[in-house]
């Protein structure tokens, strides 16, 4: 490992402009924080979920489809607030799905700050498609 630590001083050796590097650090941090929060919520919900239902028989050979409480954003949030454990796990998963969406939104803002309108448009199109999908269009 010692040989790698001196060759990887994060973005310093990439040759990117300072503004570019700042955006890379921001995007990297957002992805890390989003995934950490999502994993923490799913993990804590998962422990409680397994403590309650761990000895139940697990059978997913036939597709039944998730109920509304676990397949709509409203249902999931309501269930999670009522500490319905499967819904808490599902909320963690929704947060994970939302992480790349938040990353795209951050990219829109970062390009706007730099008045790079071409890429504001490009990122905004991607953001709109993601929101359309997540809100169940």
């Amino acid at each position: 490992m010692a040989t790698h630590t001196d060759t990887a001083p994060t973005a310093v050796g990439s040759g990117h402009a300072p503004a570019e590097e700042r955006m890379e650090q921001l995007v990297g941090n957002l992805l890390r924080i989003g995934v950490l929060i999502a994993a923490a919520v799913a993990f804590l919900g998962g422990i409680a979920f397994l403590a309650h239902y761990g000895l139940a028989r697990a059978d997913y050979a036939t597709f039944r489809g998730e109920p509304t409480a676990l397949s709509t954003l409203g249902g999931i949030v309501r269930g999670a607030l009522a500490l319905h454990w499967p819904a808490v796990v599902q909320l963690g998963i929704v947060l994970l799905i939302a992480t790349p969406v938040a990353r795209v939104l951050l990219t829109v803002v970062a390009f706007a700050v730099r008045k790079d309108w071409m890429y504001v448009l490009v990122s905004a199109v991607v953001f709109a498609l993601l929101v359309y999908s997540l809100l169940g269009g």
Partner: protein
Amino acid sequence: MNLLELTALLFLGAFTAGLIGSLTGLGGGAVIVPLLTIVFGVDIRYAIGTSLVSVIATSSGAAAAYVKEGYTNIRVGMLLEVATTIGALTGAFVAGIVAPQVIAIIFGVVLLHSAWQSSQPREEHVTGGPPDRLATWLKLDSTYPTPNGPQAYQVHRIPAGFGLMYVAGVLSGLLGIGSGVVKVLAMDRAMRLPFKVSTTTSNFMIGVTAAASAGVYLHRGYIEPALALPVMLGVLSGALLGARALPGLRTRSLRLVFAVVVAALAIEMLYNGITGKI
């Protein structure tokens, strides 16, 4: 099997998939669906939903590290994400109308191609020649870190890359995979980006592509928390370990072993699809 046992086994399987997926740049998703359907007997629709979640976890986890190191080309990634998200929505829509057997067969074919592709040796091409006018206009040319300091590179053949990315998006949405192989193919071969830039930018894009179809699958009830939980956490821990080991790691022999495993799973998927056992 009870839920605790299934959770533990799924976690182990997903951890391995995440580690290898991140080291080879192919993503763990390619093996999650066969693992769930063939080994655990899970319905392919739940398997696809679960796999998509794991793909987002791998991509975001590993991308966080690569973006900071300056390998990822964010402009190339954003531009091509337009193609992959439209493709992903198309794929998720198609998945809702075709029979599960058809999906299994397509999965098998794509997996066989991935196995073949990942066993091919990689040669780093020299980026030279006249700059591409479209790439210059789109400000896509950039630099990436090497042991000898920043190395400049140019981007070529953007329309070809864009078209391939749409295909990658369709496959991602239809099969619940990251389709890193097609993404790397588009950037490495068609657009002639340096290999490490291709793999890390692919990883960066995979999360957004998968999120586009994951929304559709969530509303369709394909995402089961009891399956997604251990797979997501397993793949994430494996991928994080893999991302830390990336600089300087020789992945050639690992790619070969992975190619053989993927080929075996592909044949099993094809067989199950054709005989209607899925």
